[in-house]
């Protein structure tokens, strides 16, 4: 464990220098399909932040206290995906009971999240980089925020694009990918601001 890596630094690095979407390409599927409108992007973004932060922490606990002592680390893919799916299911049930408005806002996004590769990706990165508990939580939280910033920016741009004249063949996915590339270029500007392993 590198002592110079502090949870706060990891938090900001996950948002800017190591943005999970723009530098690690994760969560592209829902990014492309949901980024048409700001309102839905906001809903999905909020759900991703919450689920990613909690599942990173949960998966850390499971990995450290169950998988490592039992020497079952090769099962981590299955275990992580079960933890994520179970957590999403529980949250969905709780939200449904507690708040109608919150369920109306987030409910439809929760099932989408189980198959969002960014969530599983955050947990896998946490294992590979050997974060401790607090760092894992901060990493998940920061990555969720970074992902949401990217999808919100994209939704804003795509709303303006509706009136633009786009070359044939480039409509939809093509132009979205080019804009994502430009956003990634812009985020390269943050490189060197914070360094994490």
């Amino acid at each position: 464990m590198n002592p110079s890596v502090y949870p706060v630094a990891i938090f900001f690095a996950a948002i800017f220098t190591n943005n999970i979407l723009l530098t690690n390409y994760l969560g592209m599927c829902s990014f492309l399909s949901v980024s048409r409108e700001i309102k839905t992007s906001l809903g999905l973004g909020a759900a991703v932040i919450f689920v990613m932060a909690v599942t990173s922490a949960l998966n850390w606990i499971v990995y450290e206290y169950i998988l490592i002592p039992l020497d079952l680390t090769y099962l981590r893919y299955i275990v992580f995906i079960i933890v994520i799916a179970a957590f999403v299911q529980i949250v969905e049930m709780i939200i449904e009971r507690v708040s109608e408005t919150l369920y109306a806002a987030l409910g439809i996004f929760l099932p989408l999240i189980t198959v969002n590769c960014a969530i599983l990706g955050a947990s896998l990165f946490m294992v590979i980089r050997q974060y401790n508990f607090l760092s894992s939580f901060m990493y998940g939280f920061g990555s969720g925020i970074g992902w949401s910033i990217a999808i919100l920016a994209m939704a804003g741009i795509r709303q303006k694009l509706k009136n633009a004249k786009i070359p044939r063949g480039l409509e939809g996915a093509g132009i979205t990918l080019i804009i994502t590339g430009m956003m990634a270029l812009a985020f390269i500007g943050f490189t060197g601001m914070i360094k994490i392993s």
Partner: protein
Amino acid sequence: MAAKGKVKKTFLSGLGADNPIFAQVLGICSTLAVTNVLKNTVVMVMGLIFVTSLSNFTISLLRNYIPSRIRMMVETLIIAAYVIIVDIVLKAYVPDISRQLGPYVGLIITNCIIMGRAEAFALSNPVGLSVADGLSAGMGYGYVLIIIAFFRELLGSGSIWGLRVLGSWWTNWFIMVMAPGAFFMLAIFIWVVRGLITEREKEEVKS
């Protein structure tokens, strides 16, 4: 004979008209991440073809026994089991590449293509057809990845398969090995393919 024709048709549609990447734009997360080096891409593609075809096979075999309420979970677990096999094999035989691929091998689980094929095809079709469909989705995905990786490695490091092919006069485009290069390459690829398809359709209408 009829069945054979159907298998062939299913197989070809994944390579062309229903290609997972440029027609459906699915599963591009890991597409982009591994394509900066051709060698890693080929390994990844082989893993992916293995997982798509075998998970389609298994799910199709069990399709009458999977309760529909929990089918997503069952599918995910079947896929995850095959991904673990791929991961262990890679770790044992090509440890260097396995380290470079890092979490992206595990992320095959959440690759929308595999889930999508299982959900859309394997759950409602017999075993033979499902395997053909899985193979073709995997290969359709694979050749796009390999084309993208070829250009990214060529422009980004001046080499192909680790061998330098462009002379010392070539200045590497660092942007191609970084994230934006992947996004741009994929966008250009989709643009070219869709452009060609629409051109052809226009000609067909005219004649």
